[in-house]
């Protein structure tokens, strides 16, 4: 079975992303970047499938600047088989629409039975890429999985909903997006980190996948930024230290607001 996991190198998500006023893109200079923590769950899900059945290949695919290689190496260190890095200056500034198209073209070459993605990236949060990939690859989409089982040519998930969850299944090949409650991702062992350096990584350009430079990147993007302004921020109120009367003080505050 061939599993493809889509990953992304993102600015450290515990920090606050900023807009670069010149390029109107995410400021990447002077910001630590990491494998999107949301992607660790999809890599772990793939590894768990590989451990439960024979002959599973896991390919980690990323589109991004050269430094996205770090995300791929991290996936390989966790235990994936090989990597595909789509990196090309022409792709800079691509929107979700283009990203899905380019990723789908790269994924198709791997002849996947299962494509795993996070539900959304932890920098742009559009959540539009996995569904786009499914549409381009003409595959069903099993989304927001908090449980995943793959056997007998079928994928079954528990999918989170607004009011609980639903059980959903589809025949392979299929695209699955996973949430943070699906598993506990492993930490790469030293041995894995060493091995990762020797694992194969294909490097592709937009042209390798059949895209001309004006179809992709900034030029191909439909979304254009017109301008920006800082959002209004809330101001701090009173901060007290609990001296045993905190509950009374909170109750007074709530009474003033007529909550009680």
């Amino acid at each position, binding site marked *: 079975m061939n599993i493809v996991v889509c990953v992304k190198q993102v600015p450290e998500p515990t920090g606050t992303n900023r807009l670069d006023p010149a390029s109107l893109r995410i400021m990447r200079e002077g910001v630590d970047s990491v494998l999107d923590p949301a992607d660790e769950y999809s890599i772990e899900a793939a590894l768990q499938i590989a451990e439960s059945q024979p002959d599973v290949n896991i390919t980690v695919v990323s589109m991004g600047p050269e430094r996205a290689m770090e995300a791929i190496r991290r996936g390989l260190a966790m235990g994936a088989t090989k990597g595909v890095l789509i990196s090309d200056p022409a792709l800079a500034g691509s929107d979700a629409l283009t990203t899905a198209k380019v990723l789908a073209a790269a994924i198709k070459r791997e002849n996947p039975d299962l494509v795993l993605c996070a539900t959304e990236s932890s920098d742009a949060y559009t959540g539009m890429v996995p569904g786009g990939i499914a549409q381009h690859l003409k595959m069903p989409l099993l989304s927001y999985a908090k449980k995943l089982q793959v056997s007998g040519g079928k994928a079954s998930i528990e999918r989170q909903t607004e009011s609980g969850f639903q059980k959903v299944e589809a025949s392979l090949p299929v695209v699955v997006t996973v949430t943070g409650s699906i598993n506990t991702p492993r930490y790469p062992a030293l041995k894995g980190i060493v091995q990762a350096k020797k694992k194969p990584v294909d490097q592709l350009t937009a042209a390798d996948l059949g895209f001309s430079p004006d179809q992709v990147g900034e030029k191909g993007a439909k979304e254009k930024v017109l301008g920006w302004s800082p959002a209004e*921020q809330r101001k701090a109120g009173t901060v007290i230290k609990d001296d045993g009367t905190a509950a009374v003080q909170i109750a007074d505050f*709530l009474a003033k607001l007529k909550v009680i």
Partner: protein
Amino acid sequence: MSKIMVFAQLNGGQVQKVALEIITKARSLGDVTAVVLGQGAAGQAALLGQYGASRVLVHDDTAYDQFLSEPAADTLGTLVETEKPDLLIVGTTYDGRDIAARLNARLDCGVITDAYEISLEGDNLKVQVPWYSATTIVDVTLQGGITRLLLVKPKSFAAEPLEQPLQPQVEQISAAISDSARRAQVTENVVQKSEGPRLEEASVVISGGRGLKQAENFSLLNELAGQVNGAVGASRAVVDAGWVPYSYQVGQTGKTVKPSVYIACGISGAIQHTVGMKGAKYIVAINTDPDAPIFKFADLGVVGDVLKIVPALTQEIKQRKG
């Protein structure tokens, strides 16, 4: 007059509130056509008219409830191709996002996610989007194509009925749903009921985070919620840890709440959480760490132990109520 198409999603046969919020906004932009797909679709037309839909397209077919994303994306895609609306607006729900992502690829149109202010003058579309966990407001537009696709999160606009409701023209969609769209099959729906008001509707929300130490301590929040007719929410960390179901999650990847009072218990205030709650009128925060970011914008911050303060507060309120 601009043509605005709104996908009015159903939940259990009822139009979701986010659809009414979107239609309220859409009626100020142009002529609104609502599309309703699934069982009970036709019965929703009058309600949609109250909020400003002048035309309602319905397709009452169980396939929309039985299979994920593809039947709805196929029907909407065909509708957009024939009707050529200026905008197609979809609510950001789990289903809405899946469907919009497919449409984005199929129609090769642009998409703006998380639109919270929209203006459309002639062909000029300008949408305000909060970026970077709502620290920056960005004005964006979409180029090329006829129909532009927007996603709108719940609570981005107020739902306001018209004083004089429209009597919408109701049309049946005749398109059949192909077998190839019947692939991701829903075999069971599980509703996890919680007591009290719904999280999105409650005027008081009490949310818990890591500071509660363990899952069992969420019962302290339930008891407090019971005293103030509140709903209980949670941070992503504790939802991922499995302490409470996903339906509790407030924040970037969870729900957006705008209660009168939000009481954050043992929540540090990571930006991915605060983006879902800073629309609250008042914020009360309890945390042991005096440097927790949440104290920078709480109206009342208490440095102390939630496990002591919350039960004491419940007791205090009980006493005051007599």
